């Protein structure tokens, strides 16, 4: 999934949607994932990277990933 091109993110997990004026605060892992999405990395690549770096089961990661996308979609941050 791709983040909308005009979405501004900062290194500390702050997200700003200039089209709506909405802003969000994310934690460190959110910031890391957003940065990877902004670089255009694929979902699979990002998830593989998380499995490498963090102590998380693949099924748990899949579940959390789905939640993450639901939140991004609800916040109108994903490309259609």
């Amino acid at each position, binding site marked *: 999934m791709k983040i909308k091109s*005009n979405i*501004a993110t900062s290194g500390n997990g702050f997200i*700003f949607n*200039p*089209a*709506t*004026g909405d802003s969000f605060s994310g934690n460190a892992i959110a910031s890391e994932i957003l940065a990877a999405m902004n670089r255009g990395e694929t979902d699979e690549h990002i998830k593989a990277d998380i499995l490498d770096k963090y102590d998380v089961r693949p099924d748990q990661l899949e579940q959390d990933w789905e939640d993450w996308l639901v939140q991004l979609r609800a916040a109108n941050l994903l490309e259609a």
Partner: protein
Amino acid sequence: MSAPPKLLTIGVTGLNAHDNPGPGVAVIRSLREFYRDGLRIVGLAYESLEPGIYMGDMVDVAYQVPYPSTGSAALLERLAEINGQEQLDVIIPNFDSELFNFIKISAQMAKMGIKTCLPTHAQLAARDKINLGDFGTRYHFKVPAFYMLNSVHDIDTAAEGLNYPLVIKGKFYEAQIVNNRETAQKAFYDLSAKWGLPVIAQQYISGTEINVAGLGDGKGNAVSVVPMRKLYITDKGKAWAGITIEDNDLIALGRQFAAASQWKGGFELEIMKDANGDLYVLEVNPRFPAWVYLTVAAGQNQPAALVQLALGNEVKPFKNYQAGKMFIRYSWDEVVDIGSFQQFSAFGRMANTNNNKGQA
């Protein structure tokens, strides 16, 4: 634009700054940012307690002017007196209710050397709340359905056509959201007593509240259009905090308004964006909004551009502004000596100087 070397003297109204503030102080702040030391501000106030009068870093001298209800002849007479003292170059009126008179005497003001950048009476009337439906139809803007209320009995007809909740609006200012007949009647009596008839019952549209500040050159061009999303809204529906946003549909709407109406001067579109992304024009204000300084912060100094238009200079439309610029309003206790208040109250004039800010 580049600042001219000559000292400009500009008269500005709308110096009140309560919870429904006038735009005057924000307009002056914008002008000061552009003209720096090449500016003399003459504040024009209706009441002794308008705080802008006593803000020495904003207003050089303030004069009392007659209320709009006293008519254009009284206003012209007073402006002639003031002009004799101050040699005004430009006047920027900032209240809806005073615009009719200022437009009416604009030719006489021009003869006195005072320039303005104002819409025509026809343009002013076309965007009036009571004509907004026709305006929307004619120029293809989405506007909420509404009914005129000339008596309290008209509320039932409006409620039948629009259903509750309704937005009950005063002829000039203020609006209340009501959920039943009783609160609608109370709002009707409140607003008709304050602003006269008709009162307006408007369809309630839920969504995101966005305002657009703009400047039209009178030839169909929007010199500037800056949209702002309200982040904090007071009980009077005013933005106490807001942020500039990047939305091409809103920019297009602002430009469409300027083109369709041939608007000359500052304007503000009050817009509701519903869940489908449709933009409803709730109101068109015929002057700059109180948050106009945000346009300066975002890169488009609308009040300074208006002065350039008033002076007859060519002003190229702004192209860019910065999205994500926020304003967060606050109130401030301006402390002044009673002598200043007495001076303005008794003589209708009060000069602020560098050494005795707020003194006579």
